[in-house]
C-alpha cells in the first residue's frame, strides 16, 4: 500500500483537555482513499475529539495526523482546503437561506462566479432543497437541516468528508437517504470518516471500522473480519428429547471448533467456528450418538457482539439503531 492511497494517517495521537480529561489516548489508524471509515463507540469515547483533531478545530497533545497527505498540525490552512466537515451540532445559520449559506461557504473556499452558482444549484437539487432554497433555515425540519449540513460540507468538493454522528435524531427514512448519499460519495472517490453510536450504521456503511472506548481503539478491521474474530457463529439446535449433557459433550468433542456448549431442556446452544461448514458434521455426530435433531439455526455474530467483547461494558450506552 503506497502513501498516496492513504487519505488519513493518524499516529499515536493523544489529547488531554486542560481540565484533565484524557479524551484520546494513543490512537493510531489509517484510512484508504475512497473508503468509508467508521468510528464506533459510546458517548464520551473520544469520537468527536478525534474528528475535531482531524479537522483542525483542535490540536492533538502529541502524535501526528496527516489528511490527504497534509500534516494538519503543521499546515492547518492547507488541510482545511481538502476536508469537509459535518459537525454533530450542524452549523446552519438560522436567519440565512440554504442558498445563501451554500454560497457563503463556497466563497470562504475562494470559489465564485458561475462555477459556484452552478455548484450551489446542483447541491440544492441533489439534497432535495431546491424548492426551499430561499427560505430561512429556521423554518426547516431536522431532516432538511441535516441535508443542508451535508451539502455545506461538499461545496468545495473535499477529498475527505467527516461526518460526526450524522444521523442522530433523524427519522428512519431520512437516515436511509443519507446512507445512500454516503455510499455515493465513496463511489466517486471521496473518503468518508463517520462517527456514530449506531451499530447498524457502521455495519451498513463502513469498509473499515474502529471501536473506541474511553479514548482508545479497542478493535479495528473490516466488519466481517471483526465478526469472524468474535469467536464464531451462534448455533442453536432443537432436539427431540432432553439429552444427557455428557453424551452431547462427548459427541461434539470430535467436531472441530465448537465451544461454549450449553444444554437446557430440548435446546442446545454453542459457538461454532465457520458454522456453515461445521453444521453437517455436527448433526452427523449428534445423530450417531443417538441424539436426534429437530432443527438447527446458525446466526453470524453482530457488531454488537464484537463491541460487547472488546469494550467490555454493556451496550446500554450504545444504542441499536431504530429499525427502518
Amino acid at each position: 500500500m503506497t502513501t498516496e492511497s492513504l487519505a488519513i494517517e493518524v499516529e499515536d495521537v493523544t489529547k488531554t483537555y486542560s481540565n484533565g480529561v484524557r479524551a484520546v489516548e494513543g490512537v493510531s489508524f489509517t484510512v484508504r482513499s475512497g473508503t468509508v471509515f467508521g468510528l464506533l463507540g459510546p458517548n464520551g469515547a473520544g469520537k468527536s475529539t478525534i474528528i475535531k483533531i482531524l479537522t483542525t478545530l483542535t490540536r492533538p497533545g502529541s502524535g501526528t495526523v496527516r489528511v490527504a497527505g497534509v500534516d494538519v498540525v503543521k499546515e492547518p490552512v492547507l488541510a482545511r482546503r481538502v476536508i469537509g466537515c459535518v459537525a454533530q451540532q450542524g452549523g446552519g445559520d438560522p436567519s440565512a437561506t440554504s442558498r445563501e449559506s451554500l454560497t457563503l461557504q463556497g466563497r470562504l473556499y475562494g470559489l465564485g462566479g458561475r462555477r459556484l452558482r452552478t455548484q450551489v444549484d446542483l447541491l440544492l437539487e441533489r439534497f432535495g432543497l431546491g424548492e426551499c432554497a430561499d427560505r430561512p433555515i429556521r423554518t426547516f425540519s431536522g431532516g432538511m437541516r441535516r441535508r443542508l449540513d451535508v451539502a455545506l460540507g461538499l461545496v468545495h468538493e473535499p477529498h475527505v468528508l467527516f461526518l460526526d454522528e450524522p444521523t442522530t435524531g433523524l427519522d428512519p427514512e431520512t437516515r436511509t437517504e443519507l446512507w445512500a448519499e454516503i455510499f455515493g460519495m465513496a463511489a466517486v472517490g471521496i473518503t468518508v470518516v463517520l462517527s456514530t453510536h449506531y451499530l447498524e450504521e457502521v455495519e451498513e456503511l463502513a469498509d473499515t471500522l474502529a471501536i473506541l472506548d474511553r479514548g482508545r481503539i479497542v478493535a479495528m478491521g473490516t466488519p466481517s473480519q471483526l465478526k469472524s474474530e468474535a469467536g464464531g457463529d451462534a448455533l442453536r439446535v432443537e432436539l427431540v428429547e432432553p439429552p444427557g449433557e455428557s453424551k452431547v459433550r462427548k459427541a461434539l468433542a470430535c467436531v472441530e471448533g465448537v465451544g461454549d456448549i450449553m444444554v437446557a431442556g430440548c435446546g442446545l446452544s454453542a459457538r461454532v467456528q465457520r458454522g456453515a461448514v461445521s453444521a453437517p458434521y455436527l448433526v452427523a455426530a449428534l445423530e450417531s450418538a443417538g441424539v436426534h435433531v429437530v432443527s438447527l439455526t446458525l446466526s453470524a455474530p453482530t457488531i454488537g457482539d464484537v463491541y460487547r467483547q472488546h469494550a467490555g461494558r454493556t451496550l446500554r450506552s450504545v444504542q441499536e439503531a431504530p429499525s427502518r
Partner: protein
Amino acid sequence: MREGAAQLYHMTVRDLRSTLRQPTYVVAALVQPMLWLLLFGQLFTPLMETTPGTAATGSYTVFLTPGVVALTAVFASGWSGVVLVTEMEQGLLNRFLVTPVRRWALIAGRLAQQAIVVLAQAVFVLLIGVSCGARFHGGILILLAFLAAMTLCTIAFASLSNALGLITRSHQTVVAIAQFMVLPLAFLSEIFVPREEMPAWMSAVATVNPVNWLVEIGRQSISEDVEWDDVLGRGCGLLAIALASFWLSTLALRVYQRQV
C-alpha cells in the same frame, strides 16, 4: 491578504444580513438612542441650561447630542459578544473555523458589522439633534473625524466583548460585564455634564477614560473653533486601544480553539 479581504467582506455581509432580518432589533437600535436624547435632554435641561459649558452650545439637548452618539456606540458594542456566543452554541463558529477563512477576518467581519450598525445609529441621532437645533459649526471634517473616532471606539469595545464571549462562552457573563462597565464609563465622562461641573476626582478619571476622549472629539464638532491637536491626540489614543483590543480578541479565539 487579498483573499482575507474578500473573506472579511463576505463575513460582514452575512452578519449585516442577519442583523437586518431582525426588524425588532433594527427598530429598537434606532429608537433607543432617540429616546435617550429626548428624555435625558428634557430631564436635565432645567438643571443644566444655565451652566457655562452647556449654555455655550445653545441648549442642553444640543450639548447632549455628541454624548448620546458616544453612549450608543459603547452600549451597542459592549453587547456584541452575545451574538458570538449564540453562534457558538449553534455550531456556526465551528463550521467557519474548519473552512480556510482567516481567523482575523472571522472576527473583523463581526466588528465591521457592529461598526456599520453604530454608524447608522449615529447618523440617526445626529439628524435628530439637528432637528432639535444642533448646528455643527466645526464643519464636516471634524464631524467625519468624530465618526471615525466612534468607529475606533466601537471596534475596541466590540473586540473586548467578543473576546469575553470566546473565553467565557456565556451570554450572562458578557451581558453582566457589559452592563457593569458601560454606565460607570458613561458617568465618568462628559457625556451628560461639562467638565467644569464634575467633581475634581471624576474629572481626573475622565482624562484617562477612552469614552471621554470620544466625547471630547464629538464636542468639538458643535463648537466654533476646532482644536485639531486635541482631536489628533485623542484619536491616536483610541486607535491604539482599538488595535490592542482587536489583537486580544484574536488571542481569545485561540484560547477558544484550545478548548473546543
